[in-house]
């Protein structure tokens, strides 16, 4: 029997702020243990929370970017549970009045090949709310050591509807969500630093059925590919259980990405009783139209909207846009190069191929790169105007990338300008014909390709500076002349 999977994702994203969610001690990663604490973080007796304005701005921004409904009034609730990483033994969160409801995340599924765009879907969201992160437990045998540096970091919880149907869709959803978060400056979403964490609810049902199966919660899927692999593994596991006559038990499972296996964390799911109630230490948040308008003015174009515009405005091929659009800065870089060169496709090619290759090879961030859009534009213009050949441009690219010298300056300094001196070209072409009698014969016999050997000879003689278009013209003229072969 064919089965379909029903998947909902619960994603936690650390919001990029300078201070914590409910107190002003610095937020940060990689500091030495317990150096980012204060009375509020440690839940010392008497400490009280105060909201971080920037964290609120950021979630309003996410809500607007994803088309959520922003609640005009929302409040804070306490989620009560005991755990050593939770200093107050309650988490300040939002229960029945989340700040964002609804909205969608646009995703792209893999296409039939790398060069062809895949299908787009809009995955509906249930809600997004703000809360606070917990500290970190470091296990050491029979003991745990607690570092509270992370505790109190603003955390956004993004809950999707159970609208995903495959591991691939889940992967695409997380990829798209992460891109939106980075675009909006909400979070860097570095999964290695725990800035994006994902839990998945997975169930299966016979294809076409409408009833939901028993769901299993997968925890600690700590990289995007582990999310895909873990869900794929879980779907397979559930199908195997059902097909062998078993039943799925509601449980929480931990997926180990290294071994590709999962194990039950809690076989007997003890119902949590979080005793939610409004946090009496905090006042409600009211988001009015003015606030939304201010945030909306700072919302960036969404990645897929940008991609569609790049198709329409610059006629870029899919492959180039697929490389550019996930990176907002790279897109800005491209647009600057495209506009100042007047050659968007050429600029796009240089950026998507050569620039990214060099950035990766040198492990250089785009922001630190000495080659700016003006360099790309200069290079494009030089090639377009025939001042240098494409080959020369390719050869000098690495040096331009490394030194940041302007292309025009380098071409001048190195004398790389293409030769258009007809006398000089004529000499080189004559020499080429003389040195390649077999090619001459073949060409004259109708083998069009035979001219390439002569062209190559000219390029070699000229150290690449010969203008290929002129060389072609001169060679053909000489080869057409009846005396051409006998002149020497």
């Amino acid at each position: 029997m064919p089965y379909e999977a029903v998947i909902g994702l619960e994603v936690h994203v650390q919001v990029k702020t300078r201070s914590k969610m409910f107190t002003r001690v610095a937020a940060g990663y990689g500091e030495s243990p317990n150096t980012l604490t204060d009375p509020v973080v440690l839940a010392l007796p008497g400490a009280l929370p105060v909201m971080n304005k920037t964290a609120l701005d950021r979630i309003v921004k996410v809500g607007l970017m994803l088309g959520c409904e922003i609640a005009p009034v929302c409040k804070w609730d306490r989620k009560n549970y005991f755990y050593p990483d939770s200093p107050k033994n309650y988490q300040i969160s939002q229960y029945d009045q989340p700040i964002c409801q609804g909205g969608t995340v646009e995703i792209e599924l893999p296409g039939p090949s790398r060069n062809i765009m895949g299908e787009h879907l809009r995955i509906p969201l249930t809600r997004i709310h703000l809360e606070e992160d917990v500290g970190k437990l470091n296990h050491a045998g029979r003991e745990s050591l607690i570092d509270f540096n992370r505790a109190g970091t603003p955390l956004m919880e993004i809950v999707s509807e159970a609208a995903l149907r495959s591991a691939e869709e889940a992967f695409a959803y997380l990829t798209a969500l992460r891109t939106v978060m980075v675009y909006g400056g909400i979070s860097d979403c570095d999964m290695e630093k725990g800035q994006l964490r994902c839990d998945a609810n997975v169930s299966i049902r016979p294809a076409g059925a409408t009833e939901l199966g028993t769901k299993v919660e997968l925890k600690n899927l700590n990289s995007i590919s582990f999310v895909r692999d873990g869900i794929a593994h879980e779907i397979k596991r559930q199908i195997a259980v059902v097909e062998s006559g078993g039943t799925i038990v509601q449980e929480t499972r931990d997926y180990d990405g290294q071994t590709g296996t999962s194990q039950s964390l809690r076989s007997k799911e003890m119902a949590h009783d979080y005793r939610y109630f409004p946090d009496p230490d905090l006042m409600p948040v009211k988001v009015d139209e003015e606030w939304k308008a201010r945030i909306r003015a700072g919302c960036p174009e969404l990645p897929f909207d940008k991609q569609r515009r790049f198709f329409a405005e610059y006629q870029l091929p899919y492959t180039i846009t697929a490389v550019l659009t996930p990176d907002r800065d790279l897109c800005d870089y491209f647009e600057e190069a495209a506009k100042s060169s007047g050659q968007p496709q050429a600029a796009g090619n240089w950026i998507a191929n050569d620039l990214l290759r060099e950035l990766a090879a040198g492990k250089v961030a785009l922001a630190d790169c000495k080659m700016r859009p003006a360099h790309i534009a200069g290079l494009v213009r030089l090639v377009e105007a025939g001042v240098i050949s494409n080959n020369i441009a390719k050869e000098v690219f690495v040096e331009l990338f490394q030194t940041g010298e302007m292309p025009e300056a380098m071409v001048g300094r190195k004398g790389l300008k293409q030769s258009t001196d007809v006398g000089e070209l004529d000499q080189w072409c004559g020499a080429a014909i003389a040195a390649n009698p077999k090619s001459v014969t073949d060409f004259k016999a109708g083998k069009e390709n035979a001219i390439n050997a002569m062209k190559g000879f000219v390029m070699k003689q000229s150290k690449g500076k010969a203008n290929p278009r002129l060389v072609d013209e001169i060679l053909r003229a000489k080869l057409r002349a009846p005396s051409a072969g006998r002149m020497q």
Partner: protein
Amino acid sequence: MSSDLIFKSAAELAALLETGQVSSVELTQAFIDRRRAVDDRVKAFNSFDETDALAQARASDARRAGGEMRGALEGIPVGLKDVIAVAGQPLTCSSRMLANFVSPYDATVAARLKSAGAILWGRLNMDEFAMGSSTENSAFQTTSNPWDLERVPGGSSGGPAAALAAGEVPLALGSDTGGSIRQPASFCGVVGFKPTYGLVSRYGLVAFASSLDQIGPFARTVEDAALLLGAIGGHDPLDSTSYPAAIPDYRAEIKKHRGPWKLGVPKEYFGPGLNAEVAGAVRAAIEFYQGAGCEIREVSLPVAAEYAIATYYIIATAEASSNLARYDGVRYGHRSKEGSDAIDLYFKSRAEGFGPEVKRRIILGTYVLSSGYYDAFYLRAQKVRTLIRQDFLNAYREVDALLAPVAPTAAFKKGEKSSDPLAMYLSDIYTISLNLAGLPGISIPCGFTREGLPIGLQIIGQPFQEAGLLAIARAYEQAHGWNGMNPKL
């Protein structure tokens, strides 16, 4: 010299300091000596640091000599209920749980006292985590009422009230969640003032019930209470529930309000539960106001009178169950030696660290919030709270303030009610509704029982109108000599 000083008002002490008739060191030493002389009987102090107090006093004297006085409390000792954080001082909440806890930070009120020049003198006893009405729930000691050592000082701020009555401090800060300043003030014959919710920052006040807790002054006179409130009150960005408005100079302001006022008497507050002697003293005070030209009107607080206690015990215990979850033996506080794993450690540390009343309230609060009960208990209580507040706002359409008893009786004997929690809870009947409505209320001495126990008059004011309320209280105080009387110890 020192016996002259210990029962003077803070305003008088400030004048003596100003004219150089006494130094802060001499003053502080007088209170140190007094504590040494009487506290083995009163047991108001959980801890104290004489050396530190004298060092603060020397620094104050130096500032004065250098013409760099800080503020209105320069050189004057202030005792703090052991629930308010002072950097470097113990903060026990009279709980075994925090027996060894030393605060690394200052409560906002502590910082403000320091910047007003006050000497922070002593950590004063209380019911454990401010849960109680007699100070018998302290894990360390039971404070005695200085007027009768066999009796309780009231609670939960029994330590501040008793220390003030016994002349061990000239001013003190307490906290009031359901009457915990006003009731002990009435039992000990001193002035106790709970300001409007939000007027005084709660940052650094160990939370019992966050939406009800409020810090307030204990003083010998209404004017002193105004002085102390002026030093600690006003907006604090560290407390999200702090009211964002500037406060007036209460000490100057109270002299401008002269009446006559329209005063209400809640008819439900004079029912059969009220002790006759207490009723007599309060009625005499009402007559005083009438004689002074005030219009007295009977008002009704039907919901407040009938439902405040039930409402309170849902909201307060629910909030407390969550507020006290942080005492788990992990980051600070009592840790059981028996915990086999982290979860087991919680169970045992909390069992060992908390006393019975705290456990009882945590259990009740946990129950009312547990799955399936939220709407029936907490949400319903929050709605009744709205009606209680409306009761008061309705009354304030007709009158400026309300006159009422503070407690149904004068100070009761130690042990008298400690085995019956409900009876103890019911004794908060006249004070608790103010916390639910967020209103300011003051207890001032208004007489004595035949047995020589102080009786308090409660005056209930309008939100953020503390100057008017204090002025009404001061009018009575100036016409009577009650606060000139002190217990013999």
